[in-house]
């Protein structure tokens, strides 16, 4: 499985983008918050604390191991924290959603999903260009989306079920639930008690990144807990 999962190392452009985002959200030196004090704040977090609530800041790959030490990947090395490149290497627990390259735009073929795992190993997902506009669709046609492919009914795999004609994932091989990839993973018909979690994407240049998850992935109490973070290929 791991061989099939495309992974990309963060590019200089990505790092620059992260830094720019951090600035925009007021969490960098440029944004007015003292960098050292911000890092100190994060260092004080515990691994299990409200990671979902802090996700989306977009500052980068905030990681904490189980001893509550925080590691951070930043454009600039610092003595305050350990720098990890690739960003998730060596971390046991995520407290922020990492930003992980999933594919290049050129890799996309309409209606053909590209599998990946995010944010933990085993959290299978698929990236697909639908060919019609979609909820939170990216790209020139607003049709590039990604979803968890673990059925939220009873956990059966949805890999291989994407139907390009109708833009649904499913019917699930377990109990036939179908999820509309153009409507944010809403259940079209079926028994799942959650939408299919949509992966939050960003496009920078030609690269497509995963940087968050909307909704809880099947099997988990929290998307960032109880597993091993995916690693970026070096």
């Amino acid at each position, binding site marked *: 499985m791991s061989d099939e999962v495309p992974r990309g190392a963060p590019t200089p452009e990505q790092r620059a983008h992260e830094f720019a985002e951090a600035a925009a959200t007021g969490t960098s030196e440029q944004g007015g918050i003292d960098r050292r004090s911000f890092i100190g704040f994060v260092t004080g977090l515990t691994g299990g604390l409200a990671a979902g609530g802090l996700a989306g800041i977009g500052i980068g790959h905030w990681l904490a191991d189980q001893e509550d030490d925080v590691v951070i990947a930043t454009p600039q090395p610092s003595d305050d924290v350990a720098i990890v490149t690739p960003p998730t290497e060596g971390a046991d627990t995520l407290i922020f959603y990492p930003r992980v390259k999933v594919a290049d735009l050129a890799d996309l073929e309409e209606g053909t999903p590209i599998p990946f795992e995010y944010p933990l190993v085993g959290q299978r997902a698929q990236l697909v260009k639908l060919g019609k506009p979609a909820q939170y669709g990216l790209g020139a046609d607003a049709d590039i989306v990604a979803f968890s492919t673990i059925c939220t009914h009873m956990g059966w795999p949805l890999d291989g079920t994407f139907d390009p004609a109708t833009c649904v994932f499913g019917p699930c091989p377990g109990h036939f639930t179908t999820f509309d990839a153009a409507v944010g993973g*809403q259940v079209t018909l079926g028994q799942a008690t959650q939408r299919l979690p949509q992966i939050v994407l960003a496009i920078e240049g030609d690269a497509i990144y995963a940087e968050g998850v909307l909704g809880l992935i099947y099997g988990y109490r929290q998307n960032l*807990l109880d597993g091993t973070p995916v690693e970026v290929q070096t």
Partner: protein
Amino acid sequence: MTTDVQQSVPIPPPDAQVAYTACEFCPVACRYRVIRWPVGREGGPAAADNALGVDLPAGIGQWVSPNMHNVVTFDGRLVNVIVQPDPNTDVGNVGGDHSVRGGVLARKLYNPGTPTAERFTTPLLRVRDQLVPISWDAAVEIFARVSEHVLDTYDELAWGVKVYSYQYFENTYAISKLARGMIGTPNWAPHHGPAEGDDTPGLSDCGIDAFSSAYADDKEADVMLLVGTDPYETRTARYTQWMQSTPTVDVNPRKGFTSRLVEKMGGLHLQLWPGTDTALLNAIAREIIDKGWEDTEFIDSYTASRAELDAEGGWRRKMFGLTFDEYRTYLFSKPEFTPEGAAAITRVPADKIRAAAEMLAAPNSDGTRKKTSVRFEKGLYWSHNYENTAAIGSLGVLLGAAGRPGQSTSRLGGHQRGGLSGGSYPKDKSPHDYLGNKIEMDTDRWFVEGNTRFMWVIGTNWVGAMAATERLRERLEELTRRTGPQLTSSNTQDAISALTSRVDAGGTVLVHQELYPNATTEYADLVLPAAGWGEETTARMSAERRLYLYEKVADPPGEAMPDWKIAATIAQRMGFDGFDWPDTNAIFEEGGPASGGRKAYNELVILAQERGIRAHDLLKSYSDVTAAEGSYAEASGIQCPIQRDGDTIKGTERLHADLTFKSDSGKANFTLPDWDAVASRMDIIGPSGDEVYVLNGRVNELWNNVGDQLRMVYHIDRWPANFLEISDEDAARAGVESGDWVRLWSDRVIDQLGEEMSAEITVVAYVTDAVPPGVVYTYFNYPGQPANNLTSADTTLQPLNLRYNFKVGRGKLERIGPSEFKDAFLMSFAPRNLVGGTDA
């Protein structure tokens, strides 16, 4: 876009309390476990550190989704509650399978931070057109004194009750004990029809109990006939766990999910024209007889002779019962029942009719008989009630589908079985008869005629649920809001005075006892706040008659009370004895002797008394794995009728197992499936010109009057409005695309008095190949958009049994314009009948 994006779910610590119950909604009655612990604590991800007993991340069927969790109060304390499909159960929802209805049960429980904040929490009185809070004491006083005035001044026929038939034995027993036993009114009707009585009379007249089967029969059958239902959407876990693998002949005017899956798995879908079931079933029966494939051994031994039929005491069986020879003669006397004749009526190709007969009844290659079972539901029996149920019952008898493993004929059920009579229905007081035989009272016609002065509606949206509902609503408005005085004071005596004056002016006083407001509440003078599922300990059976205890898992909101307690309080205020029950167990025990037939549970009560324990506690040991000391085999419920077995009791897997049937002779028989009666009725109620058939029914995610689902964010997200399945052809004709508002209207709705009226609903188009041109399909009871606005309410068209032709409405289509759901990523309009493989 949805706001239902939840990023985490709390994990119960190992010492969390665990209770067991069954689902509130569909008749499968899936098993659920309820895990409860104080807010503020959590367990860990290792199995040893949580009450789920699993390592996280959870594997297949072991996950708790965020919608399975809620925060509620229990015994006044704030607690986390998880309502999870029991991953260990081996009955019903084996392995924790579940539908989306039961899967979000936790969100049904009252949490004022959710849309359940709309629950009624205190009695309300309509004063100056506002519902204002009053005390229980005042509410009960008003109820009792106005009721007494109506009963003293008029008679018990002027005092009516409209009540669910299924919301737990203890409630239905208490309510019927008051209304039928003490007051003795025949003005009593269940939630689903205008009159008390048998819903499947044709089947009953064959001698077969409508709930005789076991789920195991679905799987054990070699082949199944399935008529008028889409069980994937409506009895989900029974379908996915028990029925799905059985080769099936599916009869349905829609090509929904189940129909397409049946075809994919090698079965047949007979997509008949609406209302033609009797012709199709008769043609299949004729073809079976023509080929000599009937179950001769069963027919010879277990069906009645002409002399036995003539000796029957029941007038319907005596009138319509047939021997095999008479049935055969009828089928072969009419060209409509040849494959080609039926094809012209039903639009099912003659070859498919022949193929269906072969699949259902042709012998195996070694000459042995196939085990055939017959299953059906409202698409069949709520279009042409008597004839269709006679046709399917007779076909079941012909196939020998009765009383044997894999061979049974049954309804699938629309809800669980929770009706228990605390007083027999006084049919002798009914104003209606047919050919000199007393039949139950058409309470809607009686009301529309202005005869009902006091109406007590319990746990149902009367207005939306009945046919020609716009006339019912209009009359309700006239008789409550526009007749006699309206209240200007919430003083109890003022209220009693004004309401009795209204009664004497020819008006009606309406009491609505419910969880949530609905269309009926618009006209209520008095609202009584009820408690629901999980807020009281009660008992009820599944569609295979499996009796469970439903444990209380949360407090009712505010002053809300269980229905039994409301009825008992009113009865005591009216001076009736026998209503001083301390709890539901006392009612359950008292009701034991009244629980006859398929519901008989009195042997459990007797055994409990012998053991010196409460009957509910004994039932709990059959319903709750903790009470059964960890044995799932013992905690799988117990199938009624319950039988004595030495020093213990045992259940009954299926009825008619001794091949005796519900008739005076103990024999089964055929019953006249009179196609001419259907055909003449269709001339009156069917569409013509540019009208289409307006079919209605359920949809997977929604349940009954949607009172609960529209207070669950997850379900509102999927169905923010009622939908209209419409074919490409009809959509093109009306200029409609998916997401457009459509006005569905008719000026030929036949009302309760047999007069034509106009009515309409506005629905969101969902263009699909699931319906053929000329046929549309919509949800039957969506608030504000009730399909029953367009169904006929003239029960004189079905005089045998006073049932509505709910499933064959008619109307015209008119595009209004785009809805807010069109092209807005709010509502999926993808096909709902995708079965994989050939879809792509």
